[in-house]
């Protein structure tokens, strides 16, 4: 696939928020 740096940034921003909700709700910690 080809794509832009902007696409990567958009996905990263969206997924940081998404995963924060999932990880916090499930009480998952890797530390």
């Amino acid at each position, binding site marked *: *696939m*080809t*794509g*832009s*740096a*902007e*696409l*990567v*940034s958009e*996905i*990263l*921003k969206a*997924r*940081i928020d*998404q*995963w*924060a*909700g*999932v*990880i*916090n*709700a*499930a009480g*998952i*910690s*890797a*530390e």
Partner: protein
Amino acid sequence: MGDKIGNRRGCREPSVRCAAAAAIAAVLALVGAARADDYPSRSVHVIIPFGPGGVTDIVSRVLFDAMAKVLGQAIVIENRAGASGTIATEFVADAPPDRYTLLVDDPSGPLATGVSLYASRRIDQLTRLEPIAPFGTTGAVLVVAANFPAQTLADFVALAKQKPGELLYGSTGIGTPGHLNGALLDRIVGIDARHVPLAAVLPYIQSGQLRALAAAGEHRLRELPNVPTVKESGCGNYDVSSMYALFAPGGTASDIVGVLKRATDQVLNDEDVASVSAKPASN
């Protein structure tokens, strides 16, 4: 000319200082252009946040073998596994933006999950890394043992709701994409399945020991064309596909990012690279 530059830069009146600033800016622009023209003048190191032999490692080696030929310099791949990719992320984020240390990571998975899984490390992935380009994706699939009673994802969800906390799901470890993808499915469809570590599953699907219920992405998987997506199964939007993308340390000059972006695109149009990357992944 001095007036125009001075006004653009916020100087209220033309001055020697503004003229000097303009001259310095021009020199820096020329230096930047020369750097891009010469880049790379030595080997480039690419950090892979996982161990050798995995999908990320294999796909990256194919890409960067071809990219080294395009750039005319060796590309050295280093595997720095650990902490769900966070160790590699930190390493590249802390590297000087000298254009010779790059990172491969998944902005939809580990690079994003590391923010919450390793909150005490406090790396700002959005500012400490400079995205260059994506270069691949892989899908995910929901499977059950071949003798499991659920034939479809809807069956599975109904069964899981009847037995909260009793159904188990596998991944390769705590905090891995498989683990978190399971937690996300729990949340989306409203079930309580428990996590246990497992190994790669595609060989088990192909041998009939596991039955695929749904592909966990926007589209069906190339390797499993008869398996519907989660959305097609009527269980909502659930896309946990992985993306491979190339990053540089934050602050890397845009002209260098441009050189790497063009090289990545050129390599991805190479038939040999495309044919290898089209092979099914096994984990």
